[in-house]
């Protein structure tokens, strides 16, 4: 086997993720309490073990492919494109923030903040217009879900006002 130059070292992240998932699944399966209800020739552990082996085999396969100079084709652009991690982190942070704030603050504030942060991260710099649109989206979706679909989104601190 000839080892060509690895094109993108960061691509080994995929190998790591696959191996980690395989390990996690194996650990979860092997440490599970024994089942007294087990019936039939295949218990609840067989399928997880097969899948973790499949993950491991794929991890090894991709590692070998990378060492031989292979690479996964990104969806668009080329592997050399620079990544903008700041923008990326703001989007991810904004989504996670909603998980924390949706119940205490309510959907209108949490969702409005989410929309505003995303618009800002994606490059719009018109604070007044953007805040207005965010408020409109948050309130609009709240009332649409409430009145048309009959789903009560959490009102949070605005309970009683909305």
């Amino acid at each position, binding site marked *: 086997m000839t080892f060509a130059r690895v094109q993108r070292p960061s691509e080994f992240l995929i190998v790591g993720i696959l191996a980690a998932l395989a390990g996690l699944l194996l650990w979860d399966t092997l440490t599970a309490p024994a089942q007294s209800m087990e019936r039939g020739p295949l218990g609840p552990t067989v*399928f997880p073990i097969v899948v973790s082996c499949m993950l491991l085999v794929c991890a090894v396969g991709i590692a070998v492919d990378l060492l031989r100079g292979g690479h996964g084709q990104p969806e668009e652009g080329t592997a050399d494109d620079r990544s903008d991690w700041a923008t990326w982190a703001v989007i991810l942070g904004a989504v996670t923030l909603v998980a924390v704030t949706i119940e205490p603050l309510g959907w209108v504030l949490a969702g409005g903040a989410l929309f505003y942060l*995303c618009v800002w991260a*994606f490059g719009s710099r018109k604070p007044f217009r953007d805040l207005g649109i965010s408020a409109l989206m948050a309130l609009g979706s709240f009332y649409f879900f409430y009145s048309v679909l009959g789903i009560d989104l959490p009102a949070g601190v605005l309970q009683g006002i909305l």
Partner: protein
Amino acid sequence: MIETWHLLAEGFAAALTPTNLMYAAIGVLLGTAVGVLPGIGTSLAVALLLPLTFALEPTSAFIMFAGIFYGGAYGGSTTSILLRTPGESSTVVTAIEGHLMAKNGRAPQALATAAIGSFIAGTIGTVLLVALATPIVKLAVGMGAPEYFAVMVMAFVAVTAVLGTSRVRGFAALAIGLLIGMIGLDAQTGQQRLTFGMPQLVDGLDIVLVAVAVFAIGEALWVASRIRNEPDKPIPVGRPWLSRADLSRSWRPWLRGTALGFPFGAIPAGGAEIPTFLSYAAERKLTKHPEEFGKGAIEGVAGPEAANNAAAAGSVTSMLTLGLPTSATTAVILAAFTTYGIQPGPQLLESHSDLVWALIASLFIGNVLLLIINLPLAPMWAKLLRIPRPYLYAGVVFFAVLGTYSINAQPLDIVFLAAIGVLGFVMRKYGLPVLPLIVGVILGPRAELQLRRALQISDGDFWTLLSSPLCVTIYGVLALVLLWPLVRKLRNRVAMSASSRPGQAPSSESRQEEVGESTSLAGSSRHETD
């Protein structure tokens, strides 16, 4: 047979009154409006709007219901195409090529081929429902666990090994999907798997959550990370109508999708997902424009959309004749029937034949109205893409979070959404296909269930998996598909060593083939060691 058509005519007579037509039109509009919300699919749209029909007398309720049903389905496809936020597992495939078409300024064509394909498939499917109800029921009853397992393995291999450039990456994505699908209680023993003691994970992750995370959040993160590489240019909207070339490329996928969709919809445990996956795989193999797949090929929208709608008609067949809902949407219809005190099942056609035929006639009418109302609106929907990029993607994230939260009202779901979104981003960045992951999540649990059921019935005898001609045929074809690159490589090697003899020039064609196959071969041969 003649009596059947007579009954159908009576159904039309009952359904086709001006008032009922108005209800149908309202149903189509409301269904589209709700279905077009990202993350809300047909079944959820129907379930949310169902209470509106309760005030009406049964015939009017059913016709409005049929309108909601088709409107919701079309609305779901619209968001899949425009925003890549599928509301239901059966429109996940549409999101792939459809959204790529939209990015290339061909959103109206994608929407139009989806609308016409759905119309044709829905109409043919409903005709088949009228004509074939009885034989289909017989076929469905004859299929057992081994056959279902074989069909699911076929779907796994079809989307993983046949599509994409790197088989090993396809199988890696499939394995991740199978792992996600395993989260929750084991259906047979109640054993908790991968729940880590979290009660929120006991029911597993909702498929809509996974799909929205991988597609919408993954896409938003991907665009965010590349924001400096691509200037903000509004996506072109292009000319609004299907060209003659689009039509000639669409009609075969429409018919093939219909042929795949109806039988799968009609068999219990079939559902709409498998035929959409198979249709996509088939179109990708059969297309005359393979270079367009992955960049927005119209066949990749036309086929799966038709398959989805034909499967819907098929699932109505088994719901009416067997009382078995094979899709989420028919489960909701079943609920609607029971609120009127009607019990679907083999006796339904006799006990309430007037209602059944009114419903079937309503399905025809709803389908026609959908086409009339939505085809002219396609260019208008497509203008949604004119929204500047910050607002468009902020909207995608916003609705993805909203849709996810509204499934279970669980804040923790949003954390899972973010985590799987990061996974979707990494997969995009390093060229792992996302479709096998989705297929694994949806079909993995069902495949495991059918396999274990089959082996329980046979008391551990693995030969039961090969006990019927259908199973043997499916596994035979799969073995051929998986082994073919290996065979070809061996043949090429023989040819190369033969041609290295003096006087024979190596054929450049076989060389090229070997280079092309080497990566995919690595994947397939490794997989067989599993």
